[in-house]
């Protein structure tokens, strides 16, 4: 297979295993490109991409922008803080106005779940979802799996535990879809209040004891507690959360095997993960960031090749 089965990247839910293979194979080439003395290829010279960020982001936004520039696409940036959205413009109007300037692809982050899917039905451009509320964050899940594949050889058959705020995490949901699609075993771990009911229906198991979960797994993906999405208190205090679900060096060293530690960022050092763990050899947090650029290049390249002129 040399073509994606989808025209937009809205979520991992819509992908097939072959799509993931193709994205990874393409990302391998781009990883080589971004380690060259001159880290740029001219493939997307005639493509214009708009990055629309209706929600704050550092890593994802920079990573997308860098990926686009490495492919020689023209890039325009937009963030809602300084835009007419504040004046009451609707999403479709905003995007159609941008498309009127001849934009081929839209990378969008939005606080509302399903915003990307909605947009893909109403506007004429390729849409890449860069995070829609608590729904999906497909490129993050792809780069996470890609990083696991890079460290452990393959994703199939590996045991991955996702620890933390599962309820509010689009990273968790996309990761669950991606890992299951590639044949990994997945557990989620966290305070009962932050684990959605019926999550087992996605084929994952729930474990509320961190030590047990870590002893079972090959990879631990430590999520951030998303205070900004919580309207009520889900656990008594940050200190108590850290005591029960925080990963420190002592716990890591007490395990009978070397597990791989991941974190999608931004890290709250000392809350879900201590500094000595985040900076240890077992953590691949910065590899994840580097792979993010290669993965996003692959996604954009493959989607751009499907745009009809």
């Amino acid at each position, binding site marked *: 297979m*040399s*073509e994606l089965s989808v025209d937009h990247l809205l979520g991992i839910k819509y992908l097939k295993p072959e799509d993931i293979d193709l994205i990874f194979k*393409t990302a391998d*080439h781009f990883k*080589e*490109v971004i380690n*060259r*003395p*001159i*880290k*740029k*290829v*001219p*493939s*997307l010279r*005639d493509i214009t991409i708009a990055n629309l960020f209706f929600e704050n982001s550092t890593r994802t936004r920079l990573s997308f922008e860098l990926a686009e520039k490495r*492919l020689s696409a023209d890039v325009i940036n937009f963030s809602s803080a300084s835009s007419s959205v504040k004046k009451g413009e609707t999403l479709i109007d905003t995007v159609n106005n941008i498309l009127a300037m001849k934009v081929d692809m839209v990378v969008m982050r939005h606080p509302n779940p399903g915003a990307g899917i909605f947009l893909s039905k109403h506007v004429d451009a390729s849409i890449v979802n860069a995070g829609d509320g608590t729904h999906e964050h497909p490129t993050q899940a792809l780069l996470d799996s890609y990083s696991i594949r890079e460290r452990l050889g393959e994703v199939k058959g590996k045991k991955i535990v996702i620890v933390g705020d599962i309820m509010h995490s689009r990273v968790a949901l996309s990761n669950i879809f991606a890992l299951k699609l590639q044949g990994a075993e997945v557990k989620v771990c966290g305070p009962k209040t932050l684990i959605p009911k019926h999550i087992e229906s996605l084929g994952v198991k729930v474990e509320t004891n961190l030590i047990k979960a870590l002893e079972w797994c090959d990879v631990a993906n430590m999520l951030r507690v998303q205070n900004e999405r919580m309207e009520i208190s889900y656990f008594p205090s940050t200190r108590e959360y850290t005591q029960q679900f925080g990963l420190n060096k002592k716990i890591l060293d007490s395990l009978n095997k070397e597990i791989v530690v991941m974190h999608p960022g931004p890290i709250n050092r000392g809350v879900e993960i201590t500094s000595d763990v985040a900076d240890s050899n077992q953590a691949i947090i910065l590899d994840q960031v580097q792979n993010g650029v290669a993965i996003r290049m692959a996604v954009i*390249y*493959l989607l*751009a*090749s*499907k*745009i009809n*002129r």
Partner: protein
Amino acid sequence: MSQKMLLNSKEINIILHRLACQLIENHPGFEDTVIIGIQPRGVYLAERILNILKVEYGLDAIPFGQLDITFYRDDFRRSSKPLEANKTKIDFIVEDKKVILVDDVLYTGRSIRSALTAIQSFGRPKEIELLTLIDRRFSRHLPIQPDYNGRQVDAINDEKVKVHWKENQEEDAVYLISK
């Protein structure tokens, strides 16, 4: 569809030796010279020539790279099929080196144009030469000519020239395929 053999294994072997000797004439010790094969098919040709240089002339330290030009092509989104990449493996900088680009068939010249752009990502070479096994003259879209050439072929646009290598197709041969 019919096919006609243009070169057999013996003829290819003679040509490969001649090309190797011509390279030695211009690059006596290969001190500042690197050989870069264009993926996928130029790599087979480059490896053959390197092997002759090594076995028969003792030149075994020539830097060899494999260059994939997919991301540099000018027909992205113009061809019906998406372009699938191959591996690029160049472990050296070409800055101030003499580069010999190797490809099996020179046709429109567009691949070579892409390769010339791609090479720049690895530094600024002192000079670049082109070695091809088959030159389909009269088919060029760009002003590009080989410096070392195996055989010139006059083929019309409907026809295809296909090079087979023992490594992947059991025999060394060059075929002219017409519809």
